[in-house]
């Protein structure tokens, strides 16, 4: 029982880690998208 609960918490923390990483990657991607739009607007002008 103890083994199972520790395994579950390990699994949960792994999924939480993946979710956090995906969230950060989305944040990074949106930041780069905003910069690219700025570059395009400057280049067009």
């Amino acid at each position, binding site marked *: 029982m103890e083994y199972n609960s520790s395994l579950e918490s390990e699994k949960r923390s792994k999924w939480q880690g993946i979710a*956090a990483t995906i969230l950060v990657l*989305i944040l990074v991607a*949106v930041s780069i998208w905003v*910069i690219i739009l700025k570059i395009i607007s400057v280049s067009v002008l």
Partner: protein
Amino acid sequence: MLFKFNLKRVLILLAGLSLLIAGLVGHLSESRGEDKSALYENYLEDSFTGIADYSLLKVDPTNLGYIYAVEDNDDMLAGYVTITTGQGYGGLLTVVLNWSLDGEIQSISIPQNSDDKAWWDQLITGDFFDQYIGRKFDDALVLGADINAISGSTISCNGVALGVHAGRALVAEQLAKPYPIPEEKIKFGLSEALLIGGLCTVVLFRMLSVLSRFRLVRYVTLFFGLGVLGIWLARPLSLTNFAVWIMGSPPHLNTNLFLYILVIGVVLLALIFGKNFYCYWLCPYSAVQEIAYKLGQVGLRPSVKWHKRLRNVRYFILWFALFFTILLGSVSITVFEPWGTLFSLKGSFDQWVLLGISVASGFFIYNAWCFYVCPVGAFMDIVLIVRRKGRDLWNTIVHLKVKKEVNGKV
């Protein structure tokens, strides 16, 4: 391990080299356009439809000012046009003024500027430019007294005002009449005093071991930053504040003392004490994220391995923004951080999206923006690394010198 070390050095070298090349290419393309007359003549034709002919009267090389005589359809002198520059938030902006024969402003246009569109649009919607129409060259034209600045876009307003002042100096010289030269006083006010106070408090809190043990003291300065730098002044430290120096167009000292204290103060303190006194201590956006995290209480965090990897993304974003800023010669590329949109409540659609995602991620991850994206934090980290490497190099030189002296004596 050895491979990883080398890869890091290669990447740093490539990043440095690419920035140098971008600078070189940007400078060369700028040099090609050093004689602005061809470009300015396009501005003349675009801005004024009633001009039959024009001739260049004078070029003032000190502030890149041009004055043209304008003729009407009957070949009669109809007025003057001045084309000058002023220092805006994102770099130089071009001010085109149409003057009557007796030196009255007939029209004003800004064919080129590097300021962020959201802020710039405030000048148009706030009828800032209309205030100059009908003014004469010998009016005082003092920003804040005769001409109202637009709140939140004061640096852009100041850039236009500098261009107008340069233009009226050319007209006054042409008409051989004097004009009131505005007093060049450095403005030190409450905002500057509070900023110095805030920086000194952070230094005290972090350097005095008696105080640095208490976690609460960080929240005191953090909320001070949120109130003063964020909500009141809407002027947190931004990558733009560093980029204007890198591009060789620092803000006008007399009207932007605040930015000088902020940028030079934070960098100088980091170089002296080896600590970043701004991030996590004074940054208003850090305070916003702390609040979001407290409200969210989710506590997600990437694994240790991914945390380390993602931390380096900040350096990529810093390089990416700076590379294109230097290459294209436009500082407005660096105006993308979410705090500009949050504290001014002005921004384009994409900037609002970034703000939304950034605040939302703050509910789940502790200081997500600061840890993984913020280019200001990356810049400050580089300052601290340069300081450490410089000190190590100095110690090595001193050590070698001492060793040489000892060997000489033996």
